[in-house]
């Protein structure tokens, strides 16, 4: 119930391509869904977040798509760049409780 399932585990994308990472959850009480970006040796940094009252949120090249009925949300990185190469974690929380993280996706953007 508390799990967030993330896929794929790793992803290789050509520079300029679209990177898509997916997450699914079971707990319908989750009401906040952030994505974190982590570079090697660094802590996770918030990238973008969404609440279930909207189906999409866009910030620059990063978009979250949210499907409440399917209990899925995804991160799209448009025009992927080598500097986007990092590990991406989806997360969720059912209110005023700590984040539950997915297992992470290692993204490599190659020129």
């Amino acid at each position, binding site marked *: 119930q508390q799990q967030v399932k993330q896929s794929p585990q790793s992803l290789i994308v050509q520079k300029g391509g679209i990177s898509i990472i997916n997450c699914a959850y079971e707990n319908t009480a989750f*009401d*906040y869904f*952030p994505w*974190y970006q982590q570079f090697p*040796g*660094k*802590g*996770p*940094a*918030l990238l973008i*977040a969404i609440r279930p009252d909207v189906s999409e949120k866009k910030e620059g090249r990063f978009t979250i798509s949210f499907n409440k009925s399917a209990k899925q949300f995804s991160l799209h990185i448009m025009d992927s760049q080598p500097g986007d190469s990092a590990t991406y*974690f989806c*997360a969720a*929380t*059912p*209110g*005023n*409780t*700590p*984040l*539950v*993280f*997915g*297992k*992470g996706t290692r993204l490599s953007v190659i020129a």
Partner: protein
Amino acid sequence: EPEVTQTPSHQVTQMGQEVILRCVPISNHLYFYWYRQILGQKVEFLVSFYNNEISEKSEIFDDQFSVERPDGSNFTLKIRSTKLEDSAMYFCASSERGPSTDTQYFGPGTRLTVL
């Protein structure tokens, strides 16, 4: 830009020894967290702290762990008797408001190696 800081960046200890990991949260933040990440795995919640007491803790946070805010700036995680499986990156995080209402800012982490 304000940031969460953690010391040390790397701690090596012998099994059975006590370690204290230190964090300085962002100054106006009220909620503090510890997470850990075993190499190559997901980030796991350990404990949250608000108003000078533990607000929530996970199954991982057993009796060998404790947290403290000894003064107005530091937030510490103590592991009383380290085990080999405690080897991980430990991240401190803070937020101005609760976890679903505000961004959690993570520190750079402390890599704990238990030999």
